[in-house]
């Protein structure tokens, strides 16, 4: 029997085992909602068929002297019924060490990933493949295309590579210095509680509203979130203003095409500084649009990544034992991390449906796990003509989703809301 395969953590993935805690899970969830109720036995079969195709997901976290690493798991992954606690922290020694969970609830298949394994794009590939295989096992005529991969194909070596190390990096590094951003007033929930508010928004009126202001949907949504935060800060702390920023992850595959299933994204922080003066909504959209135009280009993003990679490649850093690195990384993260942003909006964009599944998969969903600070984060994905926007938070207040969605309704964009909140 061959020895167990192992992988180094990718550049972005190195952060998460050091900083994840019982409060912050570093997890995210991607779901496929079908038009039929999920059969658990068939889903288990689909997972058994699909998982060997994704060697970088069939791994456990192991501790090395200097870094964590990922080691192949040979035991099967068991699917579970969803239990109302999305994106719970992963415990590295439970469930054979799997950093991936698969759930079913009514007609929804969900997969949760520890962020060290993959990013949203990789997660979407997995859930598309899993849902397509599930439908194939049910006798449906489907094809593994448009982002779904054939389960029997052999995974290529580039699918498990750390694409950060292959991309051209400049010698110049981007600065990480930013002032702390405004946070909404928040009453933290007890640990392991994630409040979900999901909104379904038809794309056509949303795109029309964004186009009126010459913005993309992501820019428009970021602007609405900033507007909500701006008004909240104006009402509550008119004399102690802080900058407002929304973190927006950027998929680097758009600039450096790579089939990697590992992390290959970075982020930009568009925002406004109300200390400089008053803003109208149109001004905010203009600022966000200009910032995104400036910041989302391969040269500047490479400089951001170069900073992270240079730290990882530094000989002194590499020689420091892992437990000291953990302490340093978590200290730095506490001082930066979520302190620098008011919220996060990650938009996976339009998820194409594999051929033959357009009447069998109702939509995809993307959901972030508990933030590291008392915050409300937001994730979205578009299927067909509908954008699914999910707010996930570890706080009791619903200020951000409420003001964001009310704003859209006022602009004539219809919004349907669902949640996992108890009807108290």
């Amino acid at each position, binding site marked *: 029997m061959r020895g167990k395969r192992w992988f180094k953590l990718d550049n972005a993935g190195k952060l998460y085992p050091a900083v994840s805690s*019982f409060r912050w899970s570093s997890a995210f969830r991607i779901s496929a909602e079908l038009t039929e109720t999920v059969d658990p036995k068939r889903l288990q079969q689909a997972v058994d068929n699909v998982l060997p195709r994704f060697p970088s997901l069939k791994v456990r976290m192991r501790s090395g002297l200097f870094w964590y690493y990922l080691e192949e798991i040979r035991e099967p992954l068991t699917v579970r019924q*969803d*239990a*109302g*606690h*999305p994106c*719970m922290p992963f415990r590295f020694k439970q469930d054979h060490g799997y950093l991936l969970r698969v759930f079913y*609830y*009514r007609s929804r298949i969900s997969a949760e990933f520890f962020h060290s394994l993959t990013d949203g794009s990789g997660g979407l590939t997995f859930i598309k493949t899993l849902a397509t295989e599930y439908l194939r096992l049910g006798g449906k005529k489907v094809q593994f295309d448009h982002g779904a991969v054939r389960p029997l194909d052999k995974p290529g070596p580039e699918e498990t590579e750390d694409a950060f190390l292959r991309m051209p990096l400049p010698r110049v590094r981007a600065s990480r210095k930013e002032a702390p951003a405004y946070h909404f007033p928040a009453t933290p*929930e*007890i*640990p*392991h*509680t*994630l*409040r*979900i*508010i*999901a*909104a379904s928004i038809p794309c056509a009126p949303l795109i029309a509203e964004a186009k009126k202001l010459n913005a993309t949907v992501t820019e428009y949504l970021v602007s609405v979130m900033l507007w909500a935060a701006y008004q909240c800060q104006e009402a509550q702390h008119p004399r102690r203003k802080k900058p407002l920023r929304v973190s927006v992850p950027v998929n680097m595959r758009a600039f450096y095409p790579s089939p990697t299933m590992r992390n290959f994204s970075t982020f930009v922080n568009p925002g406004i500084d109300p200390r400089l003066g008053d803003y109208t909504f149109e001004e905010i959209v203009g600022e966000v649009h200009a910032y995104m135009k400036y910041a989302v280009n391969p040269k500047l993003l490479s400089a951001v990544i170069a900073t992270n990679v240079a730290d990882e490649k530094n000989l002194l850093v590499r020689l420091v034992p892992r437990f000291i690195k953990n302490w340093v990384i978590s200290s730095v993260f506490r001082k930066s991390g979520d302190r620098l942003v008011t919220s996060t909006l990650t938009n996976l964009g339009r998820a194409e449906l594999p051929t033959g599944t357009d009447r069998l998969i109702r939509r995809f969903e993307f959901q972030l796990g508990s933030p590291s600070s008392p915050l409300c984060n937001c994730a979205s994905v578009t299927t067909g003509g509908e954008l699914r926007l999910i707010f996930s938070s570890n706080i009791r207040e*619903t200020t951000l*989703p*409420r003001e964001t*969605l*009310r704003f859209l*309704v*006022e602009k004539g964009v*219809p*919004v*349907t*809301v*669902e*949640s*996992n*909140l*108890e*009807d*108290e």
Partner: protein
Amino acid sequence: MAYCVHCGVKLGAGEKRCPLCQTPVYDPAEPERPAAASPKAYPVRTPEQALKRSKRFLLTLAALMLLAPAGLCLVIDLLATGGITWSSYASGALLMLFLSAAPPLAVPRYQVYFAIGAPFLSLNGYLFLVERLSASGHWFFPIALPSLALGAGLVTLITVLWRRGWINKLTLIAVIFAACAVECLAVEWLHARAHGLTGGLVWSPFVLAPCLFISLSLFFINGNRSVREEVRRRVHF
């Protein structure tokens, strides 16, 4: 399908309240809307489960950190002196800490009152033990027990006032200072009574006077809006 009258959003079939503003769904045509007819889009969170899990971990941690050294002290004492001498004080103190910490962690609800009651009972037990072992006279029943009972009563009263929303932050501080004054007064009176001292109050007025002054000042500031605003303006940060 219902709409929230405040937010204007359409609500999912399983929602009985608007998730954004908690406004209840009310359909005049269907005032008695069946709850189970439309299940929710997501499984409802059950925070008690998570709470139990994290509390169980803390309970185990508290037991390991407090009971293990307590046992170790007893063993060392037994080996060194052939009996239980000094270790009863150390082990008793650690046991008292554990008994103070464990009940609020073991009980899922009403943690605040358990958090007050458990230390009160365990501290009484420990002081009683010290009195019996040290042969330092009878001071537990005449002094320690009533002092602790008064303290626990005052803390409970303040907790009730705060939880019911009958006092704000400023008056909470005022009440705490007033409670400190009462407690000091009571301790000196109980001490004097137990020892038959008749010289009147000696030290407690020095605590009583500033505490009462601060407390009354805070009540005055709280009651007078213009003064309150002036103070806020001058000391805000």
